[in-house]
């Protein structure tokens, strides 16, 4: 049942007296098909956890298991087929000189698919863009459309886990609603598991069933969304965060 298990995860940068412990012994697990939120202030280490899962940080210790298989220091190709990430800033995460077709086609090719033509059209349909966007460049798309392309790229290898790093914080509220609805639909259609980082408690409350509150690299509290809605957080810091958000 457990899709993603994080045990005793620590991440640090630098060494000697410049060493920064960005994440300190984090533990949590996410069930198959569930959605888990990570909230906290900037610098609390929530994005670093996602980057550590993806293998984008050099120094980490602990155990990360996907579908009961622990991942090694170097990720296997099968890992990237199972886990994909959507980044925060749709303006920075797409190559400015690659068309939507190139972005999706290259991803599909690298993951070993050969029926690329049909799959690109299918992916664009899945994220609600349609084939007419296929040969556009990022500067010809709005922020919401770019984020849809980034989601299509993440869906290309048919992953089972999507890591979402503040997927809507660069977007307007009206566009945020569209993207959140899209993510909700995709989760039920493809049976995806989500780990979502956000600083917005109401977004996490809308998308996730349980969440972890982080402060200074540590998970201070894990609670389910009912506890969040009823404002029954236990830890002093989570209470403070909740009070500031309402």
């Amino acid at each position, binding site marked *: 049942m457990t899709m993603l298990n994080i045990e005793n995860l620590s991440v640090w940068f630098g060494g000697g007296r410049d060493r920064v412990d960005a994440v300190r012994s984090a533990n949590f697990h996410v069930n198959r098909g569930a959605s888990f939120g990570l909230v906290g202030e900037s610098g609390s280490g929530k994005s670093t956890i996602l980057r550590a899962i993806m293998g984008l940080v050099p120094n980490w210790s602990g155990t990360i298991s996907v579908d009961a298989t622990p991942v090694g220091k170097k990720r296997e190709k099968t890992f990237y087929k199972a886990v994909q990430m959507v980044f925060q800033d749709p303006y920075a995460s797409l190559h400015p000189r690659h068309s939507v077709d190139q972005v999706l086609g290259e991803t599909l090719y690298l993951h070993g698919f050969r029926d690329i033509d049909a799959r690109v059209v299918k992916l664009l349909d899945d994220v609600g863009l349609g084939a007419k966007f296929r040969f556009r460049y990022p500067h010809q798309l709005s922020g919401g459309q770019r984020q849809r392309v980034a989601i299509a790229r993440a869906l290309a290898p048919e992953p089972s886990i999507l890591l979402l790093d503040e997927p809507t914080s660069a977007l307007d*509220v009206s566009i945020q609603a569209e993207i959140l609805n899209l993510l909700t639909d995709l989760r039920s259609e493809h049976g995806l598991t989500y780990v979502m980082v956000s600083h917005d408690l109401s977004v996490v409350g809308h*998308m996730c069933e349980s969440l972890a509150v982080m402060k200074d690299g540590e998970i201070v509290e894990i609670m389910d969304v009912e506890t969040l809605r009823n404002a029954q957080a236990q830890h002093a810091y989570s209470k403070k*965060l909740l009070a500031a958000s309402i």
Partner: protein
Amino acid sequence: MTLLDVENLWVQFPSRQGVFDAVRGVSFTLGRERLAIVGESGSGKSMTGRAILRLIRPPGIVTADQISLDGIDLMKKSEREMRDVRGQKISMVMQDPKFSLNPVMTIGQQIIEAYRLHNKVSKSAAFDKAIEMLEAVSIRDPERVMRAYPHEMSGGMGQRIMIAMMLIPNPEILIADEPTSALDVSVQGQVLSIIDKLVTDRGMGLIFISHDLNLVADFCDRVLIMYLGRIVEVCDAKNLHNAKHPYTQGLLNSLPRLSEPRRKLDVLNRNPAWSEAPSVSGRV
């Protein structure tokens, strides 16, 4: 009492596809109050703020029947005369402190420069004034901060330094363009209460530009809602949640709420008639 009176303001940018109207016939007045301008990106809210300070450079075109500050029309002032208005009468806090502070000058030099530009005082008097101002925006250890460079500051501190710098010439009007959207919720509260305190204590007028409806409903007195360069609705901030215009209602309904879980969020259905309808006047 009316501090600022803006009547029929247009901001236009000529482009290859014809003239693009960023702001279309906006009128409003500002008294000693907290006035919010809200809208999506591209609605012209920041352009309105910049046009008041005449900060829009050619090829951009600004036209208005009047932008009068204490009865004097800013549109008729020369560029040289505008320099006395900017900072001293009206100042503006920009969105991101990272891009608005000079990276190669210490915080102290920048604040002192801002003060001495408008006031003939000695360096040491300006230094004391800068320290006092940093204390007013709740910066601990202001002497150290004066010697520091912008990259050594966190986002919240940078934003408070910007506010200190903008308020040191004691302007009558402060335009704050998304002053808290780059900040964490906990720091957001602090920065807002500092702005609020300074505005109330000095009896200033505040134009608060934001995309966050809940925030302005709590923080401001009056709200102008902009859509594609026009004001579509004007209401009191406390009545924002009972807004009449379908655009405002759509924006409010698209927000996820902790207290009302829903499987799907409402999506805004845009009606072309909204952008055609004439701008609502925000004058009192």
